[in-house]
């Protein structure tokens, strides 16, 4: 009875691929282990080996065919005494030959004869995508903490290769209780407690990502990730480029970033501009619970290393979150959270709340502020910023990081380059004071940017003070 050869899956997440090349022709004899064909996905090329012996009776899917779904019959093997007539026009009987994915190999030119169908050249800067779909369905009120947990749980259900590792993430359910319930649901293989060795376990995550897994590495705070900087920058962000496109690093590094409350200089730093400096990294820093969830889901699905900067103070804040496991927020798209016409306030993470507070105060003084939540720092959604500048002609950037080469410096430079003629005043920057964060409550409040600083900056460039 003729045997079907099916399109195999290279990974648990693969749903379709391209049948790049047939290495056997109709009529060829096939023995177990012979390479029948090569298939390609966006990540890799693999060979299909014959498991059964026979003669290649008919090729059902021509080489060059794209989007061939996993388990589609791609050929029919004839056994002794059978001929092409036995195949018939009807679909062959369901006895399926197992087609073993022989050897996953990253796509690269010359890696094997002639398999390197050129993939489209990626752009160095990823174009800002469309905003997420407007949500009109049901929502539920969630804290940022719960939203982050749900994002991870949903993605771990969706994709077997996603796993979480970090200090205290399993038994203790996260130092900030972000991973509540995950150990119970997914077990110790996928929710992994590590020693307090950031360089080591961040590097393990990078290596696991090179092998096709999708690690989420939690840093107890990003202050400790400086120990892991070599792995994040030298390996995670550069390997795709250094290896000539052979293999990227689909990994999420996440944890709280920036100041919390009275924990001193070594536990209070904002790293947004540090990571955003590096090509190869994406940097996300949400404010609302909905964005925390939708963006973390995008980050986990992203084929690149994503730095996901959370905020300890925001963990307990609640807002409405779309009640749908398929709802995501694209990386690289800012959001106007308050429209206005007189001045643009640009912020991310906890500073969005302070910018909104400032906008209320300004409204009382007759200044109509627009507030943009960047949500993603890199790639920066400069289009949304420029569109706003063309409307308001004035910009205040608000961040918790230091001023020198900060996110605001980049915004100021790009606004100057792309919207110079629309500016009615210099870009103003509201940042942390240029000092390590002091401990005493009164000094800490002075050193961190507050709504009042934003109000003052906005009035200054509106020439209203």
């Amino acid at each position, binding site marked *: 009875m003729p045997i079907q050869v099916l399109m195999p899956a290279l990974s648990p997440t693969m749903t379709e691929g391209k049948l790049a090349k047939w290495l056997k022709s109709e009529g060829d004899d096939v023995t177990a282990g012979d390479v029948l064909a090569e298939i390609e996905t966006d990540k890799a090329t693999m060979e299909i080996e014959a498991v059964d012996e026979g003669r290649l009776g008919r090729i059902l899917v021509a080489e060059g065919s794209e989007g061939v779904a996993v388990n589609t019959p791609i050929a029919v093997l004839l056994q002794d005494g059978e001929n092409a007539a036995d195949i018939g026009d009807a679909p062959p009987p369901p006895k399926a030959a197992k087609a073993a994915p022989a050897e996953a190999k990253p796509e690269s030119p010359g890696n094997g004869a002639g398999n390197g169908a050129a993939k489209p050249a*990626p752009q160095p800067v990823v174009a800002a995508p469309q905003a997420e779909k407007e949500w009109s369905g049901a929502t539920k009120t969630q804290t940022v903490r719960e939203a982050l947990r749900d994002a991870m749980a949903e993605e771990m259900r969706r994709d077997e290769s996603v*796993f979480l590792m970090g200090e205290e993430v399993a038994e203790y359910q996260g130092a900030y209780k972000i991973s509540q319930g995950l150990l119970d649901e997914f077990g110790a293989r996928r929710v992994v407690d*590590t020693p307090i060795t950031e*360089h080591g376990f961040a590097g393990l995550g990078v290596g696991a990502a090179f092998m096709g897994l999708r*690690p989420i590495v939690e840093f107890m705070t990003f202050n400790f990730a400086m120990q892991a900087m070599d792995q994040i920058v030298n390996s995670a962000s550069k390997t795709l*480029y*250094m290896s000539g*496109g052979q293999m990227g690093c689909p990994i999420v590094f996440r944890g709280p970033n920036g100041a919390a409350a009275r924990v001193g200089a070594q536990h209070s730093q904002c790293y947004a501009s540090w990571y955003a400096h590096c090509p190869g990294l*994406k940097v996300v820093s949400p404010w609302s619970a909905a964005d925390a969830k939708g963006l973390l889901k995008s980050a986990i699905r992203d084929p690149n290393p994503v730095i996901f900067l959370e905020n300890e103070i925001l963990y307990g804040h609640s807002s409405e979150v779309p009640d749908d496991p398929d709802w995501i927020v694209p990386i690289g798209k800012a959001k106007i959270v308050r429209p206005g016409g007189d001045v643009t306030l640009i912020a991310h993470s906890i500073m969005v709340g302070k910018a909104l507070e400032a906008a209320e105060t300004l409204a009382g003084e007759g200044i109509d502020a627009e507030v943009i939540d960047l949500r993603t720092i890199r790639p920066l959604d400069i289009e949304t910023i420029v569109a706003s500048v063309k409307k308001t002609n004035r910009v205040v950037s608000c961040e918790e990081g230091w001023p020198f080469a900060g996110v605001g410096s980049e915004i100021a430079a790009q606004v100057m380059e792309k919207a110079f003629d629309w500016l009615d005043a210099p870009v103003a920057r509201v940042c942390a004071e240029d000092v390590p964060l002091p401990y005493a409550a009164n000094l800490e409040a002075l050193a961190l940017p507050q709504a009042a600083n934003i109000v003052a900056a906005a009035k200054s460039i509106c020439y209203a003070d």
Partner: protein
Amino acid sequence: MHPSPEKQRDMLRQMQTIRRFEERASADFRSGAIYGVVHSYIGEEAVAVGVCAALNREDQIISTHRGHGHCIAKGADLNRMMAELYGREAGYCKGKGGSMHIADFGIGMLGANGIVAGGIPIVTGAGLAAQLEGKGRVAVSFFGDGASNAGPFHESINIAGAWKLPMLYVCENNMYAVQTPAAKSLAFKDVAARAAGYGIPGVIVDGNDVLAVYEAAVEAVARARAGDGPTLIECKTYRWRAHTERPAQPDYRPPEEIEAWKKKDPIPRLVRHLKQQQGQFSDEEWQELDKQVLKALEDSVTFAKASPFPATDAALEDVYAD
């Protein structure tokens, strides 16, 4: 148990290929055809070849700044390696990586790494992936005595020991971290002794005896595949050349020490073994093997020179995956 005579000949061919590759890379570096920096592996060939001979294609390795030998031993293509050193489009990394970043994920070579000890956690992550996958794959970290002083070594080997990851940590102890003698940085003689602190076996091997390296690796691989965790293998060896091929780089190592180690050359040692123990390897065969290796090297240079420099557009490609 020694490998078969055929396998020994393959190992000899690989060691000689590494030797000739490094000779050629050094010469072309000095002539200006290859740029940047080249770290020669000459003298240490038995380590890469002995270990990789105990591996399957599906097993993963990671290398160091001194990485050409590991690539060749894992089965990398000479043409694409040479083209990469020449900075050409046909190179493994499209000419964008260079000597210290050659990678071939298809053969389980996760890359050289220009940061001392930087690769050790990464390949330990490959070991974690192998453990999760459960198909008996192993992962191997090559590094030097200098890297064994660095934090990532200790962090990784600690995790691997605690989690029983299927790992080999292969220390190439060539007695110097750049110019600093190991004795100045370690309070004891043997890097292998560090294994005890992590609850794993530490083995000392003559790193210039490819068969001894092979046998130690076979044993460690079997442990790893059986789920019994990592092994630290310290291979005592020596690099013949200075830290890099850059000119005017003083080499303060005693000349008599260098000469003494050259007398322990791992390649003639295997040739002698093949002749004596197998009695089937003639001078003519050895000369023929070397001739073939030289021809392959010459071909690789021809291939490299025939490949264009990367198109200018390539500078902006492969920063992000789609």
